[in-house]
């Protein structure tokens, strides 16, 4: 737990700020909204890039975001080349941000962003309403879990139905056990990790049920969290009905056909007192909406360029608020780019939002078996800077080549033995070859 505890009560530097528009506001070069892996990495990078005052705001009482409850290992393998738990990984970045003199404003909720003035309206128990002025803003609010309503599970509405992340918070942060016999719907990473966690805490996990015919999360989580504990994974199955009027008493599970419709005759009843949902994550962009940034209907997050700048000038975004990442390490790397770019913007070295330079933009188009690409646009010319693009495939495949074409010409490609929608892929595009036009990424059979 290095790091986190030390910054729990970190005092805020003079933010007895103006609450009325007429009063004086605290002015910062770069402000991060969210102290999760995205906000922390962006803050440290912004400082390294030479930004003056950098502030990280979070509604929680401690930094680290969701990593605080991710007490399992598996973090840092890419970034630090060692295996850390979530709190340890967050602690490294907290230390880094604090060493760089980034300031923290915790227990504070940002209510609104005014994109024209680039001000943030915030509320906290300690300071009440306050306004903060930023030269550049980095959106780093992360994502939320899809709920029962999003996937429309029929049946009653008893207690005992939790998203996997809510259950994780209860167990790992609040020392509270949600139930003792669970079914988990969805094979997302949090769902599989919670299958293991519930088992370790003495609960019985009778099944992990996945509607698709492939795993939603990482293969390593299947091995370490399900296989190692003998928890059955039912692919091509779904929960068709919830039973119980007070506490959940059980669920009906059916096999599904290729159209994901339940096959009659395959129903099976699973008694349980808990149903955990791990059925996808949605970037949390309610604040981005107040800032008027353009969003991508596929990712649910802001449209960004390679500097992670959104369509609103001076407003950047990184991490799961942009697109849902598979690994925190990828979030950190992406957020460092956002933090550096925001610092450069605040210093007047990087100008113009996406909207202002429509002529110089290269759209990134998702081709065959690509679900989405981030960034959605590349600001050209990219100069000497190579550009990393991240993407996910729509369906699993094997022995394929991933190809990036600019105006029809291949500028980067890579062979992959297996591709899986649960795992994010990336390609490095050489800066020297990026010029005006249209970029397409596709997956081709080798």
């Amino acid at each position, binding site marked *: 737990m290095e790091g986190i505890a030390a910054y729990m009560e970190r005092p805020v530097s003079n933010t007895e700020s103006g609450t009325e528009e007429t009063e004086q506001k605290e002015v910062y070069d770069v402000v991060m909204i969210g102290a999760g892996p995205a906000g922390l990495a962006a803050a440290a990078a912004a400082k390294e890039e030479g930004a003056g005052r950098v502030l990280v705001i979070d509604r929680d009482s401690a930094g680290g975001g969701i990593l605080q409850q991710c007490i399992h290992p598996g973090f840092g393998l890419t970034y630090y080349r060692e295996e850390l738990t979530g709190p340890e990984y967050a602690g490294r970045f907290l230390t880094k941000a604090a060493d760089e003199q980034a300031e923290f404003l915790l227990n504070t*909720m940002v209510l609104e962003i005014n994109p024209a003035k680039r001000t943030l309206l915030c509320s906290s128990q300690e300071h009440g309403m306050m306004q903060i002025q930023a030269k550049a803003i980095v959106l780093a609010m992360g994502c939320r*879990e899809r709920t029962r309503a999003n996937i*429309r599970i029929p049946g009653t509405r008893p207690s005992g139905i939790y998203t996997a992340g809510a259950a994780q918070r*209860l167990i790992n942060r609040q020392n509270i056990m949600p139930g003792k016999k669970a079914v988990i719907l969805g094979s997302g990473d949090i769902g599989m990790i919670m299958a293991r966690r519930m088992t370790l805490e003495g609960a019985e996990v009778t099944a992990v049920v996945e509607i698709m015919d492939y795993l939603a999360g990482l293969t390593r989580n299947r091995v370490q969290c399900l296989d190692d504990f003998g928890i059955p994974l039912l692919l091509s199955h779904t929960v068709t009905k919830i039973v119980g009027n007070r506490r959940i008493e059980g669920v009906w599970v059916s096999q599904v056909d290729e159209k994901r419709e339940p096959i009659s005759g395959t129903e099976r009843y699973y008694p349980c007192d808990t149903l955990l949902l791990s059925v996808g994550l949605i970037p949390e962009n309610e604040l981005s909406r107040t800032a008027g940034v353009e969003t991508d209907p596929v990712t649910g997050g802001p449209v960004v360029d390679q500097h992670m700048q959104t369509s609103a000038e001076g407003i950047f975004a990184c991490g799961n608020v942009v697109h849902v990442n598979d690994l925190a390490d990828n979030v950190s790397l992406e957020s460092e780019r956002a933090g550096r770019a925001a610092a450069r913007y605040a210093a007047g070295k990087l100008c113009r939002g996406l909207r202002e330079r429509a002529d110089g933009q290269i759209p990134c188009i998702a081709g065959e078996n690509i679900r989405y690409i981030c960034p959605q646009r590349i600001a050209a010319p990219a100069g000497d800077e190579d550009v990393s693009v991240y993407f996910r495939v729509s369906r699993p495949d094997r022995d394929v080549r991933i190809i990036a074409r600019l105006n029809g010409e291949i500028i980067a490609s890579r062979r992959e033995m297996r591709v899986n929608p649960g795992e994010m892929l990336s390609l490095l595009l050489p800066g020297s070859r990026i010029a005006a036009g249209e970029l397409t990424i596709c997956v081709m059979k080798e």
Partner: protein
Amino acid sequence: MYHTDIVIVGAGAVGTAIARELSKYEVKVLVVDKRDDVGGDASKSNSSIICSGFDCPPDTLESMLCLAQRSMIEQLVKELDIPFRVCGAIMPAVTKEQYDLLPGIYREAYRNHVYDVEYVSPKQILEMEPEVNPDVLGGLYIPRDAVIDPFLFVVAQAENAACNGVEFLLNCQVTGIGRGNGKIETVETTRGTIYTKYVINAAGLFCDDIAEMAGERDFVVKPRKGQFFILDKNTPCKISHIIYPIPTPETRGKLLLPTIHGNILLGPTAEDLDDKEDHSVTAQELEGVARDCRRLVPNIRVQDAVTQYCGLRPNRIPAGFHIGLSEQTKGYLGISGVRSTGISTSLGIAKYVVNMLQEAGANLPFKFDYVRTRKGIPCFREADMKTRMALQKENPLYGKVICRCETVTEAEILEAIHRPVGATTVDGIKRRVRAGMGRCQGGFCGPQVIEILARELHIPVEEVNKNLEGSYMVEGLLRGAGTGKGGR
């Protein structure tokens, strides 16, 4: 053991309105309900409309009470600070058959004394409501149909009644009614015997069971299920009026409306059942809601649903409002047949019931120190900057946001718990201040709300319920955590 003058069985819209009406008089009133909270069943799970009564069966008690309530509601929502908006309703006809039904509906409105219903042209409809099906052939405009917060409608009246001396006994199921010498003597409950002179049966879905206990059952109540969707506030296809379908002989059909809190509501279905405990939503019926609503508003995005729910309307057989004092058992007053217009008629019913008691000779002197008004819990989300700052100055917990989707602060949650007839459950908080009502459905704030309830009610976390007894939220503390007491 309790002693009172009047027992009201059922704390739904009707029971609570009667309680508030009776609280104006010097009489002891006790409201009992088997649920954890006021708000009943159909009263909390409905389409949240205060109807002008234009489409009631004409010349009925229902029609009369709907009309009577519409004259009182605007004063009530002011007195009790209840969210209410007269948004008006449009009834568009999208087929020739439907178009041909409009004159009949118009005439029926007239017969119901709702004189402000007007014909509207397709052009006028699309100007008022651009998202309506462009194939619309014409329709009716019903200007005084309104939307309300159905939970706060009941909660506010309960709080006001409690503040005027009415007692509420919740988690209390009636198990028998004792009669002797041709009159009511006791009400037996799971929380003990209540000695009383009067019993008012406002038990809604279960009013036939209560009537049976009083030897007054000459009807049955079957549940008629209504399933609904609530859409995210950010859904792009917006409407600003209630949009009614043209009714069929079987049902009023599935409507769309902008809720008082800025969501869009779709529904309900009308499914006749036998099981009064069947609160399940079904894929097929919800698909029917989506399909029917898309006929009226083609671009509506059902995929933006934040929740689905159902309510059970008490369908009396034989149908029709029946409100009356028993002839063989003095002191028993039965209310049955209140089905779809419960929140639209409850104030009317309350006046009607109290008048009936007075005419029958009940001694009801007016209470001089009656408190007419109630203030709602100040809502941070809707407050302007000045109000927010004032609230925070008064109570810094108004700065601490617990529910991020609906921007609900800890101060509001604490007040919901500590008010008279306060919230004791997760759903009780959700209905009073909307924590957990938003797009994450309590995924983020739920775990915190559980801890707040346990702390404020001085109970272990495993005793925090979602709603009814037995709907526990969590198993208990982890093995070895805290007091070492954990586990169920």
